[in-house]
Each structure stands twice: as C-alpha cells, then as structure tokens.
C-alpha cells in the first residue's frame, strides 16, 4: 500500500485524537502563560441587536425568549446572559419565557444568578414565565394576553400579583423580542409572533441554523441576528466596550481559541484528504 493509499485509509480514531488535541491545546498554552484572545470582527447584524438594547430606557420592558435546550448552551447561553446583564445594568425590565422543553431549568438558573449579581427582584425587575407546550400557540397567546397561558409565573406566583405585570398585558406592550433559540421555535416567533403582531424581533441562533435566517434579516422581519458562538463572542466584545462586562466574565470568547484550533484541524484534514485523493488517482491513471 502506497503512502497516499495509507493516508486515505487512516483510522478515524486518529482524526478524533487530532481534534481532541486541538481542543485541549488552548488550555495547555494558557497553563504555560500563553493565553489566546481573538478579537472578533463585529458584524452589522450583531451590532444592531446590541444597539437596540442600548437604546432602551429605564423601566422599558424587553421580552427575552430563552428557547434552547442544554445542547445549545455553549453557543446561546452567553448571548442570553449578556442581554440580561445589559438590561439589568440599564434598569430595563425583562419578561422571560422558556418554550423549549428541556430549557426551563437552565433558564431559571441563568436568570436567578444574573439577577442576584444586580440585586434585581423577581416580579419587580423581571418576570420569569417558564414553559408551556406547543410554542406556536403560546407565542400567539402571549402576543394577545400573557395571562391566557401564564396565569402564574414559573415559581407559582399569580401574574396579577406581580407589580411589573400591571402595565404589561401582552408582548405588544413591550419594546420588542429577542429570541435565543436552537430549534423550530425561531420560525414560530417569525411566523406566529412578529409576523402576525408586528413587533420588533431579533434572533440569536446556533451556527447550524444561522445561514437560514439571513433572508428574514434582509426582508426586515428581523432587526438583528446573532449567529452561534462567534456572534456571542462579538456581543460580549461589544458589552466589554460598553462597560457592561469585563474580559474575565467572557463565556463565548473563552471558546474561540478552541474554535480556531479545531477549524485549523478540520481545514488541514480536508486539504490532506483531497491531496491524498488526487495523488492516489494520478498514481492509478
């Protein structure tokens, strides 16, 4: 067997090992005093989400939909956290829902941790509605009246007794929606939510989904789009520039060196695979 044939029939576990080394390398470099920080290139679609929240005033109400499962935590948790931090720092009130079936507990932990940091009070500064099945119908219902599907919040407190909900009847009474989603719930917000009731909507989605939502951005159905871990890193960078976060608090940006090395490995393997293929084909002919 020639060199190129051997290359083409490499056991996949060697590929896995190379990816594993690439992923661990940034931590080893950090241990040896060579931390890597990659300043992100800020895209207009991420900046428009940041600017939207930045323009909100004290006591304005923003709706934050945390619609992802723990699988997408790496890419989307940093965005949700950053938006919450920005709102709490600006004293903007937030209503949060979690329409993904495995996400409510994760969302609750994020909200309670971030609220504790800024001494925010449940029911006064934020309301966490929790989860209900059938997101499409729930989105339509919330756009008409929150109490239709959420007579109580996640903790069992009736919505009527929460001071913040006295002036807010439905989503149209808020300044807009930022949906952090990892599945078809994003489509439902576009279709059954903003598409029907005409309120501003931005999405933060996983990298896998991001490419699909550029048409909605172009048509004006979305005012912003944060794509995956890179988008989250861009948002964190803008947060640092705005004085809302410090570098030590970065989440997504910690993962960017791992992304860089893993991408280098994947690109190298694609090149090696193609070189091996063409060289072995040339040998055969």
């Amino acid at each position: 067997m020639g060199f190129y044939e051997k290359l083409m029939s490499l056991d996949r576990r060697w590929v896995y090992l190379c990816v594993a080394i690439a992923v661990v390398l940034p931590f080893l470099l950090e241990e040896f005093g060579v931390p890597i920080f990659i300043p992100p290139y800020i895209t207009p679609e991420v900046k428009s989400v940041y600017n939207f929240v930045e323009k909100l005033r004290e006591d304005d109400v923003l709706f934050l939909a945390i619609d992802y499962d723990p699988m997408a935590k790496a890419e989307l948790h940093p965005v949700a956290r950053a938006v919450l931090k920005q709102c709490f720092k600006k004293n903007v009130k937030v209503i949060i829902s979690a329409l993904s079936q495995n996400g409510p507990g994760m969302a609750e932990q994020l909200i309670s941790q971030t609220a504790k940091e800024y001494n925010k009070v449940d029911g006064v500064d934020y309301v966490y509605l929790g989860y209900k099945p059938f997101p499409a119908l729930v989105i339509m219902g919330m756009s008409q009246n929150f109490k239709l599907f959420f007579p109580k919040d996640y903790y069992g407190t009736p919505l009527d007794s929460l001071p913040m909900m006295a002036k807010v009847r439905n989503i149209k009474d808020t300044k807009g929606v930022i949906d952090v989603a990892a599945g078809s719930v994003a489509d439902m917000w576009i279709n059954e939510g903003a598409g029907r009731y005409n309120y501003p909507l931005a999405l933060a989605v996983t990298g896998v989904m991001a490419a699909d939502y550029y048409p909605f951005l172009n048509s004006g159905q979305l005012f912003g789009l944060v794509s995956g871990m890179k988008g989250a890193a861009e948002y964190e960078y803008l947060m640092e520039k705005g004085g809302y976060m410090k570098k030590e608090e970065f989440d997504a940006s910690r993962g960017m060196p791992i992304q860089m090395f893993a991408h280098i490995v994947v690109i190298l393997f694609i090149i090696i695979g193609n070189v091996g293929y063409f060289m072995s084909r040339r040998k055969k002919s």
Partner: protein
Amino acid sequence: MRRQLPILVVFISGIFMAIQYFVPSEPAEFVQEYAMDWVIVIGVFAMGLGLWSLTKVNWIKVQRQTPGWGYNLVTILGMVFMLVVGLIWDPGLGFFPGEKSQVSGTWFMNFFWYIYLPIQTVMFSLLAFYIASAAYRAFRARTILASILLVTAIVIMLRLIPLGAVSGINQWLANWILIVPNMAAKRAIWMGVGLGMVAMALKIVLGIERSYMGRD
C-alpha cells in the same frame, strides 16, 4: 362516520382559524383564545402517551430479560427517580415540594444539571469529531460543484482564524457570501417551503390528506 366526522372537525376548526386572521373581531378572538387553550390541555394528556410508551417498551424488555435488559432497567429507574424527587419527595424540601422542586439546588434540578445535561451535551459534542472525520473521508473536490462547496466552506471557516492582513478581506468575503448568494438561495428555499406547507395545510383542512388518522 368514523372518518367523515373527524374530517368535518378539521375543516371547521381549520377554516375558522384561517378566517379569524382576516376578521379580528372580539368574539372571534375570544373563541380563538379558548381554542388555543384547549389544544394545550389536549396536548398535555397526549404527551402522557409518550411516557406510557417509553415505560411499556422498557418494562417488557426487563420482564423478558432480553439481552441488555439491565440498561432498560436503568432507563425506568432514571425516570421513576425524577418523578419521585420532582413530584413526591425531595430530601431537602420534604413531601410534595410543588414548583419549588424546579428551583436551582434541589435534587430534581441537580439531576438535571449533573446527569441529564452532561450526557446530552457530550452526545451532541461527539458530532464535532464526526464532522472532522467526515470532512477528511468524504469531502472531495471531484466536480466543479463540489469544489464551489468546498471553497465556500473553507472561506467561512477561515473567519475564525486570524490571518493577519488577509483577515479583513476574508471577513468581508465571508460576510458577503452570507448576505448575498447564501441569502438568495435560502430565500428561494424558504419560498418553496412556504408554498409546500400551505399546500399541505390546505390538503389536510379540505380532507384530501388523511394519513394522520391512521387506518381503520
């Protein structure tokens, strides 16, 4: 009648919901709100089907002691344990903890964070390894079309790698790819999907498509 009546129900409810969009009157909205609420209640009971099905499938395997039945027992025990700490007894909160079991720090949520979440996220993170392996084995520039795909993928992936002077050009190119050709292709796909969805929805509402009802 066993097929005709349900078709009539689909027709009436479907047409009402479609027309209600164009006639936003208070009575229509009132009916719509109740209809949506009722669907959620139906769905809650329907989801019990899934749980019952899971328990039944695993329990049969445990009873018959089929090879690997121990793993099926683990599944059932995991489910039972979550139901117990969530609904009946939490060591920290006592009996019938109510919604408090869903707050961080309870056994229910600790199971979620330290058992469910690690396993589920790792299962998905294995895809990173598979994608590298698949890229190595299958991603070949055999034809012009494959080469276009390959080159575009590499340009997008290079966004995350600092390339010095070339970085700026690459970032601009990657952004242009996303907002012009990618956007155009995805727009055409969305339009096709939208028309397909409307066609399918009309077929179901008009009773032409009946596969959801199952067989007699």
